């Protein structure tokens, strides 16, 4: 039996099930909920149920939405013909915040990871292939993260897409020195990429 009343112990236990939340943080959060007014608890409970009941994948790009299609897929002002492929909804949001890309997205919901038993059939690859023909796509931008698994996923998709459509332009987001970075602290591989992908300023 714990030192707190059963209902409070239950709440602490529920919080510890969240990623990155340990016993101490969970206790702090539970005590905060206890001290707060009833509206906070009711609002949280309502939002938790709502998110589970309403949120689903967009039927076109697999982004998170509470409708049949997400706001980006519904937006007619966006450019058709270019699809940016990302690992997850968080990556799509980051790209949207940059405000540079005005095309369409495709969310894979993961990367290839044999160590965790994730293969091509576990990602939204089939749906991407069918979009290429259906939407008359001319360019696919592979924007998976530059990690071992992200790079492998990009290579895998590049092969698959080029086999499917020889005329399709397949591009990869640039890799190199980040803004505000310091060359002294860069690793060999990043510098190699940065030098290989250098751009001409004037000739």
């Amino acid at each position, binding site marked *: 039996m714990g030192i707190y009343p059963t209902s409070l112990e239950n709440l602490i236990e529920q919080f510890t099930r969240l990623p990155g939340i340990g016993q101490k943080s969970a206790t702090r959060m539970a005590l905060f909920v206890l001290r707060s007014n009833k509206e906070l608890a009711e609002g949280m409970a309502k939002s938790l149920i709502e998110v589970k009941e309403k949120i689903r994948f967009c039927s076109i790009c697999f982004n998170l939405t509470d409708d049949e299609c997400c706001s980006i897929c519904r937006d007619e002002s966006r450019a058709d013909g270019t699809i940016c492929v990302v690992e997850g909804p968080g990556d799509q949001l980051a790209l949207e915040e940059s405000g540079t890309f005005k095309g369409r997205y495709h969310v894979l919901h993961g990367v290839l990871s*044999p*160590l965790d038993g994730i293969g091509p059939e576990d990602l939204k690859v089939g749906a991407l292939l069918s979009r290429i023909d259906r939407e008359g796509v001319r360019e696919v931008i592979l924007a998976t993260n530059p990690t*071992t698994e992200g790079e*492998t996923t990009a290579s895998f998709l590049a*092969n698959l897409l080029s086999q499917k459509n020889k005329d399709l332009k397949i591009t990869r987001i640039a890799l190199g020195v980040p803004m505000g970075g310091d060359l002294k*602290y860069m690793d060999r*591989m990043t510098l190699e990429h940065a030098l290989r992908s250098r751009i001409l300023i004037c000739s």
Partner: protein
Amino acid sequence: MNTHISPAIIMRIKEFGESDLLITFFTSDRGRLKGVAKGARRSKRRFANCLDLFCLTSLEYELKRKGDLHFLHSGKLIDAFPGLRSDFSSLSLASYMVELTEILFPLGVADNKMFELLKNSFFAIDKGKKKDLLRIQFEARAMALGGYGIDFDKCCSCGRTYTGEGRAVFKRSKGGIACLKCQQESKLSPGLDHDTVKGLKTIQSSLWSEVEALNFSDEMIREIKSVLKLHVEYRIGRRLKSAEYLD
């Protein structure tokens, strides 16, 4: 403060809290270890690109007095094995090697030969060496280093010494070979040519540099592959997750 620096292969990465990473790494002197890299997802200096999956990194970590978790101070990338990221089959093979190492070597069990085997296998994948051959070279040597080497010296049923002539049959329940008088060839007891037995025996007991120089025909690779598949699955007790993506 008891800090230690050693080359390590990054085996697994898990996001931990706001900006930390939980890292499983394999070292030559202390075996497989787990550690927390505080602020690694934000830090561009202490862990510059060195905590990526399967990278060879020089890690500076603090040895814990109790518990399993070490504290990672910093790291410097030695090799990222770019060839490993070039296609799915390379990543699958590297994942299989790591998964097998994890099973054969529990936390804290050190074996310098195993570290060298994993490192050299990654270098070989990176260089684009034949994957079927690399797989059998790794499996046979790793199983032997983990204490599950196949006995090629005598028939595991009648005890007769194997002279290195004629075919032999692999018997998975005994982890050894049997003569044709004691065991007939079947799907679960595949036969091996005398050259295959010799080759497999050499892989099990030799250093990487010696094995690299050996020549294996496609037929030998096929025979060894079926024997090792049975042997690994029988000794481990299940099929490895990553094995699904190898064939």
